[in-house]
C-alpha cells in the first residue's frame, strides 16, 4: 500500500533507507519485506544497487490478494463453516494441507489482525465484519472516528489526491446506478475515507481508518446496498471534498457524520402487516 502511494514507475529505485524511515524499523525486516515483493514479481533486486520497481504497482491494487488456503479460510469462517477457534491440525484436516502450509496461512492471518494466538495450539478469530452486530459496531466506531479527522490540527488534503478522488467519483455518478462496478465502488470508497484519515496528519487516526478498510475489504457478505444509494454516497463524498477545499472543515465534519449515518440505515429485521418494523434482531433468540 505504502509503495503504491509513492507514485513509483517501473525501473524506479526503492531506497531501503526511505522504507526504514517511513516505518521506523531497522533494515533487516525492510529487506525481508522487499525480498517478499521480489518473489511476488513486483520488485527486482539488482546486485549491490538495491531494489527497483519491476511492474506496474498501481495495477496490483486490483490483484486478488487472497488466494489459496488463506482465501478459503476467510471464506469458510465468514460462512460459519469454521469455528471461532481453530488449530493447525483442524486446518490440515479440512484443507488437506501440510503443517507448514497451515502455519503460514495462520501467520499471515495473524499479521493481518484476523486471528490471534490463544493458549495451547489454538488460534482465535478476532472481530471481523462477519456479523450484523460487528458491522453495526464498525459503523458506529467510524461515526465517532472519521468526523474527528477534520478537527485535527494541521488537516491538509493533498491536491493531487483530491483531484483523483473527484475524477473517480464523478465517473461513477455519470455511469449511474445501472452500470456500477461494485469492486470499483468499494475501492473508491475506501480510497476516499483513507485519504481523509491521512489528511488529518494524525497517524493513529489514519491507522484506525485503514484497519477498518482492511476489515471492510475482507467482509465477504455485504449489506447488499442498492446501487442508487451508492451513487448518492458518491455525491456525499464530493460534497465533503467541496467543503474541505472551501476551507470549511466544520461543515466537512458534519457532512461526514451525515454520510456515515445514512450508510448505517439498515433494512428492518422484522416486518409484518399492521406491525411496527423493527431494526436489527431480537435480544432473545427464538
Amino acid at each position, binding site marked *: 500500500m505504502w509503495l503504491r502511494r509513492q507514485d513509483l514507475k517501473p525501473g524506479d529505485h526503492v531506497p531501503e533507507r526511505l522504507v526504514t524511515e517511513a516505518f521506523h524499523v531497522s533494515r533487516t525486516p525492510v529487506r525481508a519485506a522487499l525480498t517478499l515483493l521480489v518473489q511476488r514479481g513486483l520488485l527486482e533486486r539488482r546486485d549491490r544497487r538495491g531494489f527497483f520497481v519491476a511492474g506496474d504497482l498501481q495495477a496490483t491494487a486490483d490483484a486478488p490478494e487472497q488466494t489459496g488456503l488463506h482465501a478459503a479460510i476467510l471464506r469458510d469462517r465468514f460462512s*460459519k463453516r469454521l469455528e471461532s477457534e481453530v488449530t493447525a491440525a483442524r486446518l490440515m484436516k479440512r484443507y488437506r494441507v501440510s503443517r507448514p502450509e497451515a502455519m503460514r496461512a495462520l501467520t499471515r492471518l495473524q499479521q493481518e489482525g484476523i486471528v490471534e494466538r490463544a493458549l495451547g495450539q489454538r488460534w482465535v478469530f478476532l472481530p471481523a465484519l462477519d456479523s450484523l452486530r460487528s458491522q453495526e459496531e464498525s459503523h458506529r466506531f467510524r461515526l465517532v472516528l472519521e468526523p474527528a479527522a477534520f478537527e485535527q490540527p494541521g488537516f491538509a488534503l493533498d491536491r493531487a489526491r483530491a483531484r483523483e478522488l473527484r475524477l473517480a467519483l464523478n465517473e461513477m455518478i455519470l455511469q449511474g446506478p445501472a452500470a456500477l462496478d461494485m469492486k470499483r465502488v468499494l475501492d473508491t470508497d475506501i480510497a476516499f475515507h483513507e485519504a481523509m484519515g491521512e489528511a488529518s496528519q494524525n497517524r493513529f487516526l489514519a491507522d484506525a481508518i485503514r484497519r477498518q478498510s482492511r476489515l471492510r475489504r475482507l467482509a465477504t457478505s455485504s449489506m447488499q446496498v442498492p446501487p442508487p444509494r451508492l451513487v448518492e454516497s458518491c455525491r456525499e463524498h464530493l460534497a465533503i471534498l467541496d467543503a474541505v477545499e472551501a476551507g470549511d472543515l466544520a461543515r466537512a465534519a458534519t457532512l461526514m457524520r451525515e454520510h456515515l449515518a445514512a450508510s448505517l440505515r439498515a433494512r428492518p429485521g422484522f*416486518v409484518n*402487516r399492521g406491525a411496527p418494523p423493527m431494526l436489527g434482531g431480537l435480544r432473545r433468540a427464538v
Partner: protein
Amino acid sequence: MTQMERPRTIAFLPEAAYGASLNCVAIAQELRDMGHRPVFLCDPGFAGMFRNYGFEELPVALSPLKSEAEIADFWQRFIDQHRPHFHLSPLEQIATYEVPAWNAIVDSAIHAEPALKKALAQLKPDIVCLDNVVYFPAIGRAGCPWVRIVSCAETEIPDANVPPYTSGLPAADQSGWADFRAAYVGALKPVHERYNAFLVSVGEAKMAPGEFLQPSPWLNLLLTPQAIAYQRRQPLDPRLFAYIGGAVRSEAPYDLPFFPKHNDKPLIYVGFGSLGAADTDLFRRLIETFAAAPYRVLMSVGPYKDSYEHVPDNVHLEYWYPQPAVIPQVDLFIHHGGNNSLNEALSFGKPSLVMPYCWDGHDNAQRVSELGLGAKLPRYDWTGPDLLAAIRTLLGDAAMKRRLTQLSRDLAAADSRRRAADLILATAGAGTEGARRSAP
C-alpha cells in the same frame, strides 16, 4: 416521457411489509424511468429503504409504538405468541393469528389517518397508490384518484368461484368454503365492528362483514399473472381491474458464492420472508437435511445468521439476498407462498416448493400445486426423505419446466411494470379531467 405533458407526482402507500414495499419500488422504478416523480409515504421504521432505491420519502407512522425498546418488546411478544400458531391449519389460524393481525391492521389505519391526511395535503399528488389490505379514508379524500394494488393472492378479491381468502382450499372442491367463510366473518366480527365505528366517525360508510378494503373506483392492479387467475362467476370489470402479473424490481447483480462441496450441482434458494426467518429451529432442520443432499443451497436467514454454526459446505447463509438477482440463477425456489416470491418464481420460470405458514401463503401454495407450476409441502410435518423427494420430483419434471418457461416468456413480453405504470398514469390523467368517479 412520451405520452405525458407534465411529470406526475405519484404517492405510494405500501403497508409496512417487504412484499408490498418492494413491488411498489418496482412500479416506482418504471415511473421514474418515464420521467415522473414517485414519493413514498412510509412508516419511520422503513425510513431510508426507499431513499436507498433513490426515492423521496414522507414519514407517516403506521403504529403508535415509537421507542426501540417498545418495538423490540412488541416483536418478542409477537414471535413468542405466534410461533406455535404457524403449526396450525388455516382454519385454526383464523382465531389464533388472523384476529390479532387484523386488530393490529385496524390500529394502524386509525393511527395513521391524521398524519396521512396531512402528508397528502402537503404533497398534493396526482394519484395515490395504496398497497395494503385496509382502507385509509384520507386517501379517498385526497382530491385525486387512487389505485388499489392487490399484492396478496388473487383470493383477496372475493368471488363465489374463488376459494376464501387465506383458506388454502382447492379451487376444484368447494366443500370446505362455506364453513371457512363463516368462521372467518364470525371471528373477525368484533374487529370489523371496531373498524366500521372508526369509518363512521370520519364520515365514511360502513363496510360489509369481513371486508376492510373495497376496490378502488378508479383502478385496481392485481399482482397476479392472468395465466393463474381463477375462473370467476362474476368476471372483474376490465376497465377497473387489471391482472398485471408480478412487479419485479431491479437489483444489482448477485455473484454466486463458491461452495466447497457440490459446487456443480443444482442450486436451490430458500427464502421464507422476514418473519419466516425467525423460525430458526425449522432452518436448522432444513440445513441438516440439505447437508447430506447433492445440491447447493442459498438460504435467507434474516438477522439470525449469527445464531448458526457448523454450516455445511453445500449451504450458504445470508442475512438478505437481492431476490430478483438471485432467482434467475437457481433451479428451484423454496418459499412461504408470499405473493412477491411466487411472482419472482413465475417471472423467471422457476418451480416453487411452497411451505406456507400463514395468510395468503396457503392460497398460493394450493394454487401452484393445482396448476402444476410447483408443489406444496406442509411447513413442519415432513421428514428429510419427504423434502428431498419433493425436490427431486420438481427438478426432474420436464413438462412443468416447459410450462414455466412459456409462462415466463409471456410475462416478459407483457412487461408488467410498464403496463402498471401506463395504467396508473392514464388514471392520473383521468383524475385531472374529472372523469369516472362512481364506484364499480
